[in-house]
């Protein structure tokens, strides 16, 4: 760990001296969080070592724990599993979530499987965030991008064959974890494999209550094979397989019996002096089976026989499929010493189909004929794009990046189902829907003083409505209790955004303050339509996705890292987001002010860490959207870890307590106000060879 921290520190302070000669002064990526092997990057953010440590010392952190600690990121929670990331108040279709540029889309119409749920921290090398409209590298969008890069083959330099095995236990959910990773390198070949197994039971909340349907079990494997032909070029293939089953969602009326994803990608890379080339092709497939077989499906109906209450059994199956095939070419060309041009040409094709079948049964009678519909009609979206970016370095203090992107997207239907279903709403669906979207951004980095860096970015972009927003058919949203219906006539959501970031660094101190503003036109959200009757007996009504004329969003975050020479370090992350519809109504689902403080102390082979996470109450709510106030909370965690290095191997032992004071709490974005886990003792053992 010591060695590691040292490298991290080096990385941290490498910042001001980077950017000489052919090396671009500052990488395009604003915030790269390194998770695995340390690579020296010119833009290591303030919090990367913290994130890294959090992950290293707690194998219980699923990817959600990780993302929650990124600046501007909050999580929408529906269960103990698969939380949906929200960046500066943007979520779902407003964000590009990619895996090293690979487009992948969840197969759940209720957003229960964001792409991040099919990854494990152990699969990842880096997480790269882009804020606002400046996300054109991965597609035109309004909220930003989260790019998750897959891990390289493990090679700790100790042996040709190396690996680690890690096991842990979490008391609150009787959770057991097993993680392993192995790497083998020989001559020009390197191979890496890592796997994760997690099994968690129902967790206990701070009030002692057992939260039913919060269990899950999952397996994840990632294999990477790398062939380095010479010092310039390499070929790499990745295969990822993730399978979760028996995943409970306490905030929803259904659970997930199976969620399976696999991904295969091949990449060719050539880096030679004045240019870097990367060509990648990929395919991924997601299958998500949602049903209520684990639930009590007895409902009571009032008017079946007039004046009589009747009981009825209903079962619901909702399988969803999403398949994406695509590829891209990306080239970086260094033109002279001042310019570096990035060109990216990409294309992907995504096919989505989600079905819902309800089986109704009255006690004592044969089952009724099944009720079937397609919540996502068989639709194929093909998007081609071209991205151009030029980084111009004026001098060693000032650099300007200008980038633009054009995307051409076309949606086509695989059957007449969409047409038939939408005829109910008097829509005449076209055979296909096409959009051209444009994005343009500029960002300026200016080293005002030696320890002070200012980065200003501004741009415009737009996004195409998601499959749900355009063609969704009776998508039940358990947050507001409404069914959502798509709107094929939706216009693109457009944004003008700006972001300013100040970074101050001096000796062990680094302070970063950032603010983002987005002005959105044709913001897409569900609007209640009372003319359409509700679909079943537990929905409040129906909402149709519509364009809202204007929405403003503002978010700011402050990060402070202070590292003293005596092994003590201090880290603070504060985030605040504000959203408004028109001139007065609050935008729903905006997190309150949140603050996280970590103090850690390193002594010999020991690391001790205490952290606190505090959220203020959220009073700015949108009642019309069925949003309710949330109280604030404050939660403390403790950790201690020991790092031993016996001959040619390493042993890490750590123990910790999360939610030390057993607080009964929930976050504002948590669906159904389901309490979060209470006090939990975690232990972890890791052996590296």
């Amino acid at each position: 760990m010591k060695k590691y921290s040292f490298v991290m520190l080096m990385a941290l302070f490498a910042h001001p001296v980077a950017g000489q000669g052919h090396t671009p002064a500052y990488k395009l990526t604003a915030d790269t969080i390194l998770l695995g092997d340390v690579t020296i990057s010119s833009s290591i953010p303030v919090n990367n070592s913290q994130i890294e440590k959090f992950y290293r010392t707690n194998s219980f952190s699923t990817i959600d724990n990780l993302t929650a600690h990124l600046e501007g990121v909050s999580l929408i929670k529906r269960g103990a599993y698969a939380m949906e990331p929200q960046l500066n108040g943007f979520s779902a279709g407003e964000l590009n979530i990619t895996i090293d540029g690979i487009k992948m889309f969840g197969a759940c119409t209720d957003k229960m499987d964001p792409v991040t749920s099919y990854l494990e921290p152990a699969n990842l090398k880096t997480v790269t965030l882009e804020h606002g409209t400046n996300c054109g590298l991965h597609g035109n969008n309004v909220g930003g991008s989260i790019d998750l890069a897959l891990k390289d083959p493990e090679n700790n330099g100790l042996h040709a064959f190396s690996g680690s095995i890690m096991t842990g236990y979490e008391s609150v959910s009787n959770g057991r974890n097993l993680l392993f990773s192995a790497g083998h390198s020989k001559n020009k070949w390197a191979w890496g494999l890592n796997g994760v197994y997690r099994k968690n039971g129902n967790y206990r909340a701070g009030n002692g209550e057992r939260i039913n349907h919060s269990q899950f079990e999952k397996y994840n494997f990632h294999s990477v094979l790398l062939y380095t032909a010479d010092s310039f070029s390499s070929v790499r293939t990745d295969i990822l397989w993730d399978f979760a089953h028996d995943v409970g969602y306490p905030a929803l009326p259904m659970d997930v019996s199976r969620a399976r994803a696999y991904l295969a990608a091949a990449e060719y890379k050539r880096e030679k002096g004045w240019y870097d080339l990367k060509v990648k092709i990929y395919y991924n497939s997601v299958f998500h089976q949602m049903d209520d077989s684990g639930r009590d499906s007895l409902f009571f109906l009032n008017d079946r026989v007039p004046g009589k209450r009747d009981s009825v059994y209903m079962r619901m199956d909702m399988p969803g499929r999403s398949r994406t095939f695509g590829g891209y070419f990306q080239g970086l060309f260094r033109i002279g010493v001042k310019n570096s041009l990035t060109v990216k040409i990409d294309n992907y094709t995504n096919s989505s189909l989600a079905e819902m079948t309800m089986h109704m049964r009255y006690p004592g009678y044969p089952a009724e004929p099944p009720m079937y519909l397609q919540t996502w009609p068989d639709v194929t979206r093909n998007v081609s794009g071209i991205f151009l970016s030029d980084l111009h370095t004026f001098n060693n203090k000032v650099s300007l990046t200008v980038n633009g992107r054009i995307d051409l997207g076309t949606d086509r239907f695989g059957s007449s189902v969409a047409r038939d279903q939408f005829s109910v709403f008097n829509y005449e669906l076209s055979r296909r829907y096409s959009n051209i979207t444009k994005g343009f951004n500029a960002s300026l980095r200016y080293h005002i003083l030696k320890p002070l860096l200012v980065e200003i970015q501004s741009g415009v972009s737009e996004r195409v409505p998601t499959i749900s927003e355009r063609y969704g058919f009776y998508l039940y949203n358990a947050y507001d209790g409404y069914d959502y219906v798509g709107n094929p006539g939706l216009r693109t959501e457009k944004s003008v955004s700006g972001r300013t970031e100040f970074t101050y660094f001096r000796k062990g101190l680094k302070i970063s303050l950032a603010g983002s503003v987005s002005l959105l036109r044709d913001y897409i959200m569900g609007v209640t339509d009372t003319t359409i009757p509700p679909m079943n007996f537990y929905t409040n009504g129906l909402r149709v996705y519509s364009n809202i004329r204007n929405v403003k969003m503002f978010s700011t975050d402050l990060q402070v890292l202070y590292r003293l020479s005596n092994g003590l370090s201090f880290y603070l992350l504060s985030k605040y987001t504000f959203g408004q519809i028109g001139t007065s109504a609050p935008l729903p689902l905006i997190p309150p002010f949140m603050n996280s403080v970590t103090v850690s102390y390193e002594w010999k082979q020991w690391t001790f860490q205490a952290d606190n996470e505090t959220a203020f109450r959220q009073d700015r709510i949108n009642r019309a959207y069925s949003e309710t106030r949330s109280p604030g909370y404050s939660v403390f965690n403790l950790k201690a870890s020991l790092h031993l290095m016996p001959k040619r191997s390493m042993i890490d032992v750590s123990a910790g307590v999360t939610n030390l004071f057993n607080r009964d709490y929930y976050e504002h974005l948590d669906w159904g106000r389901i309490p979060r886990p209470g006090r939990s003792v975690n232990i972890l053992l890791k052996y590296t060879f």
Partner: protein
Amino acid sequence: MNHPTMKRITSYHIIYISALLSILSACSKDDNPGNNQSQYMLVAESASSNSMFNVKFYAKDSLFVGYNKVFFMLYEKSSGSQVTQAEINFRPIMDMVTFKHACPVENPSGTADANGYFEGAVMFSMPGYDGSWSLSADVVANGKTDSIYFPLARVIPTNPVKKIVVIDSLSNGSGGWIISKYPVSLVEPDKWNVGNNNFEITVNKMASMMSFPTINDMTIAITPEMPSMGHGSPNNVNPIPVSDGHYSGTVNFTMTGAWRVHLDFTRDGRAIGKNAYFDISF
């Protein structure tokens, strides 16, 4: 609604569908596409009373209580040549031993279609077995007049029903009641779909046991409902008169399953039928 019989309906449906499929597949095997004789089910075949014509009687399906499309194919018996111009008047009779009654019909137009079928309809009002229902017809063609008689082996009941009777009770002001009965039949499309569906019904009035004039001044409102889910659907269009005795509108189904289409009937400004409905499962 009688639930235990639900299962039977589905099996009937399966029989219908498989019958239809076998007909269709037989059709597709046919080498001569112009010869579409097997497009419909042959119900019966007979010579007319005075042996002037040979008549083949087809239907889309097994005959059932409700609106049945029926098809006659006529041949001159002496020459064997097919007749394409004829006036045909149906006379269905239910022989209930003690008395007889008829049911509403729609007589074919005078010209056969391209395949030689004279298309009409019979709205059987009750089930019948072993010839209790018969379909007679007067045929005038090529200057000859003859009649034909088909005893019907079976007219089956369906569940859910495809024919209802709307009963209007009007006080005559002196303690008595004027009762009017309106048989209403559902004209089923080939297939019900999720989405827009044409919803067509026929309305007649039972003037006597033998006479069922069409009614063209009824105001009809439809409200589809999925009883087990407690929901309906948007943007339905109430049926309006489209041809003699026929009313057509649009019913929207948001999913497959068991639907109930409620019907409200108004005539002469008076609501005459309440709680009427057709159940539609698909």
